[in-house]
């Protein structure tokens, strides 16, 4: 994973975590307009970051497939592994 990809992923993780926290708060405070505004603002940010990420580095969900030649979804690496892990198993 390149430095640039790692940076963009970090941005996505930060934005997504903000949304996770805001979701939990809104679940029990559904009419808090400040929290709603906060959620909506970051949701727009997340959409933009996720669009850029999937365009450059492939799908985040199976619905993000962006190739009509091959299925990108299963491509290595998977989130729990480092790039090197994928290369040392071939015989």
């Amino acid at each position, binding site marked *: 994973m390149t430095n640039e990809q790692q940076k963009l992923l970090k941005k996505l993780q930060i934005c*997504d975590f903000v949304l996770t926290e805001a979701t939990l708060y809104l679940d029990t405070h559904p009419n808090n307009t400040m929290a709603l505004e906060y959620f909506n603002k970051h949701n727009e940010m997340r959409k933009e970051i996720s669009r850029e990420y999937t365009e450059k580095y492939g799908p985040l*969900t*199976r619905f993000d497939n962006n190739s009509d030649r091959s299925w990108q*979804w*299963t*491509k*290595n690496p*998977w*989130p*729990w592994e480092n790039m090197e892990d*994928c290369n*040392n*198993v*071939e*015989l």
Partner: protein
Amino acid sequence: MWNYEKRLEYPVKIKNPCPELAKVIISQLGGPDGELGAATRYLSQRYAAPYSEVKGILTDIGTEELAHVEMISAILYQLTRNLSIDEIKKSGFDTYFVDHTTGIYPMAASGTPFSTSTIQSTGDPIADLTEDLAAEQKARLTYDNILRLTDDPDVRDPIKFLRAREIAHFQRFGDALRVTRDNLDSKNFYAFNPAFDKKNKYKNINSRRR
């Protein structure tokens, strides 16, 4: 990372509650070949999957099993709505009711609580995928038995859908096992565990054997 979608994979709309039936269908939630075990099995096994296709299939089937946990829970919820104490006593549902009321608790029809003692994650992809093939067949036959126990079309319809998914998963696990074998030594698949033995280590094992 997971996200929840607020819908069922396939609709569940049961008009007539039937606690007797809930008592047996609960096995497909928390029983030995139930959906919770299936999801736990595949989502745990995927870390030992050495090939991208196998990581994909274990992740995606494991995720679909979580949707099946939700479908079975919805069936149980609808089968145990608006029960009178008399109905609870007569149906034999009282033995569940005393501990769980009409809440959803993962257990087998026998009363045994959900346990990972009925699943495996061996760290060996051939062993894991062979277990997965058997698991899908065992779940399929459990659905066959459930279909033998009810003639309510509202219950049979989603159960038939779940049964058909077991067969589709069996076929995809067959593909995953083929991919795994194709990547190994066709003369002896078991000479090398691709999830544990590394390329150089494999060479060392061979030279030691010689």
